[in-house]
């Protein structure tokens, strides 16, 4: 049996949950992530800007400049990768 208090508490919780979800729904888990180009290893990208591969997990080269992966927001430009020729470069928020 459900008493009156529980019903009120349930209704309040559901209303609060609906408020918390509005807006948050569309972003879900990737909300605190940003697309970072040029830092993913071959086959480990989340997607790509154009051309070089179809999408998730399909990049053929390490650190493909057109392939991106989700990284924690604010960390992309701080990410340094070492290319095959030994040169270093940082990740960028736009395709290179």
């Amino acid at each position, binding site marked *: *049996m459900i008493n009156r208090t529980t019903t*009120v508490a349930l209704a309040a919780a*559901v209303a609060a949950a609906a408020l918390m*979800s509005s807006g948050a729904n569309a972003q879900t*888990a990737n909300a605190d992530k940003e697309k970072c180009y040029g830092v993913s290893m071959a086959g480990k990208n989340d997607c790509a800007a154009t051309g070089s591969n179809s999408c998730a997990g399909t990049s053929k080269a390490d650190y493909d400049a057109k392939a991106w992966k989700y*990284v924690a927001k604010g960390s992309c430009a701080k990410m340094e990768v070492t290319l095959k020729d030994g040169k270093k470069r940082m990740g960028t928020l736009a395709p290179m």
Partner: protein
Amino acid sequence: MPAQPDGNGLADLQHRFAHAVLQAPLEVPDGIRHDVRPTRERRFGVYRNNVKASLAAALAARFPVVERLVGEEFFTAMALVFIEQHPPRSPVLAEYGAAFASFLEEFDPAADLPYLPDIARLEWSRYVAFHSADASAADIGRLAELPPEALGSVRLGLHPAMAVIASPWPIVSVWSTNTHDATPEAPAADWTGETALVTRPHLDVLVQRLPPGADLLVAELAQGIALGAAADAASRAHDGFDLATALATLFGAGAITTLSQGSSS
């Protein structure tokens, strides 16, 4: 040394061949030609190596964070022990690796990383979720529309791809930084347990933290318990349980697919 398969012929040879491929000491099965160069041991060794290397590669693809945590060399060695102890039981490679997490619990060389089995559980759940049946997630608006007196008796159906992994270790933080960051961040100062919620509302598998006690709510809902009784049980079992946060997280992640009215309240 018999060079030809015996009376049972091909099926028998195949059985012994399959056994010898995964067996620890190299023992070439009878019936493999020996009048060839290089030696049959070396030739059969190539075969064995290919089988084991591809199984190890499949495990590495399935458990990338475990591999990153222990390193490639350690992972490969560990995978080979696993393959020997748990050879594939199904011809479907996609089903291989379910026992990896429990194997890690018993694997002494990895005992320094006590959270490794739970990380493997999380990765396996993601993998299973990826291949699970599709289902449309329900919007929380549908729950909010119900009259208050109906909320207690509503039953929430869970998404077939959904999984919950409760751990005494911060597995979501460890998994997340080792998945998204080129240089893993040190986990939070308070090394407290986290419960992972794995869902696949659309094409992508999502991983997020479940708030405290929400796993108890999910366990009740999974048994078909109505929302009112499930919420009661969760708050009795966990002081910090907050129904609003739990519902927002579950609906937001697409973990709930159906709302139905039960007969009893």
